[in-house]
């Protein structure tokens, strides 16, 4: 539409108004996806309580509570995001960073009948740190519409973080919605972001173990866990996030030459769930997750990148559209707008 108005002799303002939005020539991280964003705020002091389930002296690997039989339905939630073009915006002779980006969030339901992609939603946005913002949605092409979001921070990577944040919020909304049903188990990819008690249960699944938390004696146990075993529960309490109950679970034996911590994931639930609640969730996860581990030959992020999650990521990425085409659309759009 914007283009038509211009041709009809409308004022020489495009969708960006007084902002001059240009492609950033330097796009080192342009690619299918930008690198991992540090999930853990690095130095948030958190207190650790390892005697939640049993005393520190009695720490040992715990086998999953045997719960064979028909599989209860379980939901997995994941999201993907990518930057589609990095831009700079000039306003009042000042330069600001921005990014066109997109995310997709979805869920997979596994039950005793089938595994299916259940829900998904996508979002596209232009994250700009400039004080002036475009006023409406930015229609780059049919079906390719970006919503402007304001980024408070002016750091170069702030727009990317903002897109990531949007995705996390969408994941959280979906998780809340799914976990609002009685008795459901919802496994959310990444740390848990909400604390309230739901009718169902939400478990955060952290596949990349960056911080081991545990003091050395218990750390030795972590290395010695057998596949399917978990550590006793421990509590994490800090000022920046709500209190959680967490445990480590080994999905598979490390291969020769692997770190002793490979094949280990961390799970967490809100402490509000209670120790008993956490224990039964730990049992459920212990019985289920090792079954879903990815095969090393087929997935670089094996075994932690569980089969339903990697399938969901592929599915969601496809829903974002072909990035080369979108990139070209954006380029020609910005060229038109620069006229």
């Amino acid at each position, binding site marked *: 539409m914007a283009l038509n108005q211009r041709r009809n002799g409308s004022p020489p303002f495009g969708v960006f108004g007084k902002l001059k939005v240009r492609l950033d020539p330097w796009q080192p991280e342009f690619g299918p996806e930008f690198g991992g964003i540090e999930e853990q705020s690095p130095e948030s002091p958190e207190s650790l309580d390892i005697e939640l389930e049993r005393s520190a002296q009695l720490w040992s690997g715990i086998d999953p509570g045997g719960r064979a039989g028909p599989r209860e339905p379980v939901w997995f939630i994941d999201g993907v995001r990518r930057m589609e073009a990095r831009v700079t915006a000039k306003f009042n002779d000042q330069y600001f960073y921005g990014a066109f980006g997109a995310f997709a969030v979805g869920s997979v339901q596994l039950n005793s009948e089938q595994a299916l992609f259940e829900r998904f939603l996508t979002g596209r946005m232009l994250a700009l740190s400039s004080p002036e913002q475009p006023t409406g949605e930015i229609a780059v092409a049919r079906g390719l519409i970006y919503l402007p979001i304001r980024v408070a921070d002016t750091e170069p990577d702030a727009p990317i973080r903002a897109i990531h944040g949007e995705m996390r919020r969408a994941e959280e909304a979906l998780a809340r919605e799914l976990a609002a049903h009685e008795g459901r188990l919802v496994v959310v990819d990444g740390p848990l972001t909400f604390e309230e008690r739901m009718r169902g249960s939400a478990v955060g699944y952290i596949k990349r173990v960056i911080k081991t938390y545990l003091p050395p004696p218990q750390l030795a146990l972590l290395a010695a866990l057998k596949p399917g075993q978990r550590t006793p529960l421990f509590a994490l309490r800090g000022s920046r996030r709500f209190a959680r109950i967490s445990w480590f679970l080994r999905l598979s034996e490390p291969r020769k030459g692997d770190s002793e911590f490979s094949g280990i994931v961390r799970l967490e639930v809100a402490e509000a769930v209670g120790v008993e609640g956490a224990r039964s969730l730990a049992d459920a996860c212990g019985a289920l997750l090792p079954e879903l581990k990815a095969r090393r030959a*087929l997935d670089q992020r094996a075994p932690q990148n569980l089969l*339903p999650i990697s399938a969901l990521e592929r599915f969601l990425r496809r829903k974002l559209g072909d990035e080369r085409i979108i990139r070209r659309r954006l380029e020609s759009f910005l060229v038109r707008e620069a006229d």
Partner: protein
Amino acid sequence: MEPANEVVGVVLGSRDSAPLDYWIGVEEGKMVQLDDLVVLETETPDGTPLTYYGIVDQVTKRFEGNAFDTDAFHVADHSLPVEVSYAAHVQVTRLDPEVFVPPHPGTPAQVVHGEAYQKALYFDRMDRKVPIGLTRTGEPIYANLEFLDGTRGAHASISGVSGVATKTSYATFLLYSLFHSEALGADAINSKALIFNVKGEDLLWLDTANSRIEDDARLQYQKLGLPVGPFQSVRIYAPAKKGVNTLMPDTGGRAIGVQPYVWTLRQFAEQHLLRFAFVGAEDDRAQLSFIVTRVEHRLAEVAKASKPHEPFLTIDGTRVSTFRELVELLDNALLAQWVPHAAPGTQDAFRRRLYHSLEHIGHLIRGDEAASKHTVDWESQQVTVIDIHNLRAAAQMFVVGAILKRAMEDKERKGTAKPLMFVVLDELNKYAPRTGWSPIREVILDIAERGRSLGVSLFGAQQTASEVERRVVANAALRVVGRLDAAEAERDEYRFLSGVARVRATVLQPGSMIVAQPEIPTPILLRFPFPAWATRASEANRGAVDERDLFSRMQD
């Protein structure tokens, strides 16, 4: 009732879409199967409506994206969610109007029935159409009569493995349809059919209703607009029994209502039939055929000279009233007298073959009074079945050759294409082989090449079209295959089948055929109904003929 037309998916953009073939993606919960008719209704950029009609010749399903083979196991144990692509390949049969642009990906595709189906296969353009079967979903399939009655083409070629291909059953069904549908109109009454019963006794019950016909078969006949019943005007001939003096038909399961057939010696001489007694003669044929022609000629002269209604011959004052007498006469003195210049070796070869033929056809050529009443007559009824299945190969050759030759000569004499004559002959590879020469091959080739203008249409059947004289197969307008041997299906004779159709031909069930016809650019798989006439003694229950079915159409 008839299912409604339904949008089942859209044209795919992930595979090339072309004016003559494209892929559609099938929506979840919808079904598209082989042989479904798919229609796209779209427009050219200038706004002209454009309709693509096509037939599904392949359907596939697969996991989308970079799927690993092992994914299937995880999907089976419900640990891996996948998206399944369900695609169908459509072979375009008709474009209306003929604007050859590729269909746009995303165009909705519908599976059609009824009227649109008929249009997709050009049945709307056929003025006189003959029902030739039903699709698996019950849509009637037609052939254009103009390609069977000689107007624009003639002949049908039916190939397939013995036993499972149901070739003769289909040929008989075609005849039934021709005679009982409205296609032939007023010509139906005078049109004739000559059917050779080569194997078994399947065709000896055409005049009898099938007592085992079920309701669903009746429904199929109804859909095709055909009555349910036996052929209406049939005469069945079987060869005269060997070794008995009275004329009796040599049949197994059926004795009543079967006429014996023979030739009189006079007919043998008059019609130049000696050549058909010599069909095994492939070696040194130039010399031998000279003698044959010469002797035939002299015999014809003898026949001319004798009184018109005498079944025997009188040669130089000697009355010859059996074939044996003729053979012996020729052997003794006549041969040297009629062909004095032939080399003695050739004469001996002639004699040897003559005695050989005596053994096989001697009982079919007679000079007594009774014989003249038992020659094959195809003028007084619509369908004439000539049983040859009990005869030795040499005698079969003689019968087929002698009858077809006379049929062609009759038609030539009349000089008009009407009334039409349809000839059904199985094991065409024996009578018109691709390699080697025989007088029968000449007759059949003559039918294939000139039959069209003379109103003779050959429904030939064979196990392997690759072994039949090329020109005979090439002249057939309607090409039909039943179950084919896999190696045979790859031969050039079956290039009219698409790749998928060739594979399907190797797994066809009895009662299913693939038919290619000139106006429809793709071969169609069809089924034909269970015969409404008996094909064996156990199905022939004379008392059970349902009169209502037989005559219901006549009252309309």
